[in-house]
Structures are given as C-alpha cells and as structure tokens.
C-alpha cells in the first residue's frame, strides 16, 4: 500500500486503489460522538427561531390591536348554526357558533393537534376535527377527546346593531 502513495503514475488498471471497503462505513466511538454533538447543534440552531418569536411576543410586538371585523349579520345565522370567517389575518381561519339567542362563541378553528380545520357538529353539539377525531367543547374550546391537548384560541365577539363583530383573540389564562 505505502508504495503506491506519491508514486505517480501507479498501476493504471486499478481504478479502485483508494477505496478501503472494509472500513468505509465503520462507525467508531469517535464518529458516534461527532454525530451526537452535531445533532445537539441542530437542536440548538432550530430552537433559535422559537426564542426569537417568543422574545418578539414578550416585547409586545405581537400584541397588535386588530380592528373589529364584521363576521355576519344576526339575521343570517340561526341558533345552532355556524359561520366560517377569517380573523385576525386573512389566513387565520375561525368559526363562529351561535349557541342561543344571545350567546355566541368563536374560535380559531385550526386544530391544536396538526392544524386541520375544526368543524361544528350541530347534531352532536361538539366541535370535531375530522383528521384524527379530535373533539372540542363548544363552550370553552377545551379538547375533550382525541390527540389535541391544548384548547382552541377563543375569539371575543360582540353584537352591535344586529351585526356580529370579532373583537380580539383571547390570551390563554395559564
């Protein structure tokens, strides 16, 4: 072996002289530790954006006041029915449910498991996510069955002059 090193030209008919097949994929102790350190580095880097958005929220940049948004007219939604709308952004799906004459509840309806849309089942009286059969309590948004563990973010609503408005997204009370 050592004869070949720095001995150009070596045997031209041997194209695989530099492949040491027996040890090529050997994972020794050092290589394994390197992998572990690298994985820890990946975790460290991937936690940076979470820290950044958390810091942003802490500094109050996330506490924007959104203008009240009209959802629907009272006359257009019967008791027990639901209406889909977007709040606060154009891509934040939400659902408004009229439970009684004067009781309205609204939630951001991305399931807290994997963000599938959550639907209102009038007959069963519960909110259901069809993806993995997560169920939510309609009065509070608390998950009652299935994989989700976190309540749906509730949206504060108000009724004025026969129109239902979305006011703001309530914060969790931890």
């Amino acid at each position, binding site marked *: 072996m050592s004869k070949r090193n720095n001995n150009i030209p070596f045997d031209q008919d041997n194209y695989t002289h530099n492949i040491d097949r027996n040890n090529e994929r050997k994972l020794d*102790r*050092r290589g*394994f*530790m*390197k992998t*572990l*350190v690298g*994985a*820890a*580095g990946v*975790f*460290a880097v*991937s*936690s*940076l954006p*979470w*820290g950044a*958005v*958390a*810091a942003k*929220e*802490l500094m109050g940049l996330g506490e924007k006041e959104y203008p009240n948004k009209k959802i629907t007219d009272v006359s257009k939604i019967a008791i027990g029915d639901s209406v889909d709308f977007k709040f606060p952004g154009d891509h934040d799906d939400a659902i408004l449910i009229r439970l009684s004459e004067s009781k309205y509840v609204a939630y951001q309806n991305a399931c*807290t498991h994997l963000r599938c849309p959550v639907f209102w089942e009038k007959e069963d009286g519960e909110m259901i996510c069809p993806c993995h059969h997560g169920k939510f309590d309609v009065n509070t948004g608390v998950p009652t069955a299935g994989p989700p563990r*976190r309540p749906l973010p509730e949206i504060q609503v108000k009724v004025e002059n026969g129109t239902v408005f979305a006011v703001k997204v309530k*914060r*969790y009370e*931890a």
Partner: protein
Amino acid sequence: MKRSYIPVLILCAFLMMSIVFTQYMVHQYYFENYVTTLIFCGLNLLLFPAALYVYRKGVKTDA
C-alpha cells in the same frame, strides 16, 4: 489505547435533554408562556457548546 465510554454516555444524555427541551419549548410557546420558552431556548443553546466540550475531552483521552 484506552477508551472511555463515559463521554459517549454524557453526550447521549445531552442529546436526550436537547430533544426534551425542544419539545417543551414548542409546547410552552403555544401555551403563550414566553419566558419559559426563552429559558428552554437558552438551555438548548448552552447544551451545544457543553456537548462540544465533552467531545473534545473525550477525544483527547483516547489519543
């Protein structure tokens, strides 16, 4: 050549802690406990240099 497997075990523990901290951080973010999120983000960031230090030490002993 004398090997020590203690650094390997320590690094395994560190990686496990990284995974746990990351998971916890993400959950606390969605629960809107932003201070807790920041704490675990910081812990995760500290784990990497610590792991690197343990690796260096571990490599030196078997030279």
